[in-house]
């Protein structure tokens, strides 16, 4: 093309057109499609209580995914989240052995999550180390501490009212976890899309140097994001431990993969700079529906992980494949 020639569209795209062409709309269609297929595949699917049970598949992971989405948009990643859950759960279990009550357990859970996040944050933002390796290291370290404490043992004996966080219902079929999920979805959506802090995250993800020169405290924002991810992992640990009623060092193994998959499936660019919370919310439902539907069809968990792996790669590969085919045709 001649460099002076420019492509000028006949008309601008309207917000409606953009919405229809967006990743979120496509994802929503996929979710509706899976929902319909599931309801045909199994007669037990369309039951309010069954659907309510299905939400437990993704609520805990999705809570972490909101914070992880912000972190990935800013150009960093945290692969240690599942290990933070293990360490937090171990700390809570240990506290129970010393006779801690429910309030103490929850406070300890939040605190340990925050501390783990702060540890990652210090290594990445203050010492300037790459987050992928740092969190691969802390992934071994945090879970390693759980193994040192617990070995092949398990902590049990959580107080009865602690069970509310993972097993309680707020109203009718709506569990405490799904309500928490909705509240966090709104909070993170507002923070990312409606505040200066959210804009700063996008700016950092697109060009950290430019963001620094336009007056954004890049390292401080990243520090806060690592703290938030640790905190959310702590909250997920409280819910999960309460739901399972016991702590083993192998708790939540492999969750980091599912959380990252959820975020990427939600349309967040793994290289940073773009993505949205509504996308992550729909992706959470898609993954929940897929695993629940396959579960109703008696597909074993490890085979489901093939689907999740294919979903992760396929979701990124498909748009590129389409553009490659389009480019070849043109």
């Amino acid at each position, binding site marked *: 093309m001649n460099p002076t020639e420019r492509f000028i569209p006949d008309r601008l795209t309207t917000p409606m057109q953009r919405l229809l062409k967006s990743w979120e709309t496509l994802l929503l269609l996929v979710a509706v499609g899976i929902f319909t297929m599931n309801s045909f595949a199994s007669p037990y699917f369309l039951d309010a209580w069954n659907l309510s049970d299905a939400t437990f598949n993704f609520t805990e992971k999705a809570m972490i995914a909101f914070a992880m989405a912000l972190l990935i948009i800013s150009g960093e990643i945290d692969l240690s989240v599942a290990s933070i859950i293990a360490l937090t759960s171990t700390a809570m279990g240990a506290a129970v052995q010393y006779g801690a009550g429910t309030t103490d357990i929850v406070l300890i859970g939040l605190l340990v999550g925050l501390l783990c996040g702060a540890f990652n944050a210090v290594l990445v933002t203050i010492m300037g180390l790459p987050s992928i390796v740092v969190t691969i290291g802390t992934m*071994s370290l945090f879970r390693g501490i759980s193994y040192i404490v617990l070995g092949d043992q398990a902590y049990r004996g959580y107080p009865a009212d602690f069970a509310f966080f993972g097993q309680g219902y707020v109203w009718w079929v709506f569990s405490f976890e799904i309500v928490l999920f909705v509240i966090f979805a709104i909070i993170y959506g507002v923070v990312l899309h409606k505040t200066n802090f959210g804009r700063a995250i996008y700016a950092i993800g697109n060009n950290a140097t430019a963001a620094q020169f336009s007056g954004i405290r890049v390292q401080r924002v990243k520090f806060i994001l690592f703290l938030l991810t640790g905190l959310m992992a702590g909250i997920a640990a409280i819910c999960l431990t309460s739901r399972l009623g016991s702590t083993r060092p192998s708790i939540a193994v492999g969750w980091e993969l599912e959380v990252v998959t959820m975020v990427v499936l939600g349309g967040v660019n*793994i290289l940073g700079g773009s993505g949205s919370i509504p996308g992550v919310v729909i992706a959470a439902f898609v993954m929940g529906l897929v695993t629940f539907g396959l579960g109703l069809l008696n597909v074993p968990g490890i*085979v489901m992980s093939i689907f999740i792996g294919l979903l992760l*790669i396929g979701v990124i590969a498909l748009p*590129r494949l389409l553009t490659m085919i389009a480019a070849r045709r043109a």
Partner: protein
Amino acid sequence: MIRNFLISREAILLLVILVLVGIISTRFPGFIVPANLANVFNDTSPLIILALGQMVVIVTRCIDLSVAANLALTGMVVAMINTMAPDLPIVVILMVAMVFGAVLGAVNGILVWKFEIPPIVVTLGTMTIFRGLIFLISDGKWINAHEMSPNFTAFPRAQILGLPVLSWIAIGAVVIFFILITRTALGRAFFAVGGNPHAAVYTGINVGRTRFFAFVLSGALAGLTGYLWVARYAVAYVDIAGGFELEVVAACVIGGVSIAGGIGSVGGALLGALFLGVVKNALPVVNISPFWQLAISGSAIIIAIAMNARANRRKGRFILKQAEQST
């Protein structure tokens, strides 16, 4: 040149390993007996072989988290071939293992090269897919020692000149990779791609294809180790070598391979693996629970990257000083 070696990462690591072995042997003289050291080396051989492949991948600015899953899948495939055709010569098994592993590596490579998907996403995905495939082909069943033919399980343990074949394969891999890295165009290309991909393009190197070859090499080594692993422990099931990919990455990072690409050496990967191997084998000797292993390798990764970062920073200042002096 000697001074360069003395301040190098390899020399420091070698010193650390020697001091570690020294301290252990003052308390437990049995640890330093040649037979035991050979045992430690043999035990670390799979880690050494995988670390070599991972080193090449990391040098090109990628990462391969699927090596352990590749190992397990290839191990299961050759074990199943062995149960169906017990008379197949070991040479054929070795070829099948390497080719199958290389194909799995090529899948990663194609996704990174042609689809330009970030390597960490690709290999996180293929890691779970490979593990799932093992379950699919094996139905979740174990293949035990009595189902494998005797020569299949005996091969890695056969002694040549006092060392098991497994150790000799690790030594052979180190030698081949040393030649590949320091004496071939492909070896230079790995470093060029990792050091500065844009500059590499201008020197006529195909960045994507070079990365593809790195993944194929890593996959072939993972496949080879898959057979050796299954034969040595005489068992194949879904979860063998679970989490081993982290140990492999840890060995590389400890060995001074920079995760930002372009920096790394065969000696570093070898010593990084040996360090972890010595720690792992020393834990039961000094009566520490093996549950400490995970936390120790995690701490070792963090300390090693912190040291890498500091070393790089110092190098940066030095160049600036030189530039100031020359003007």
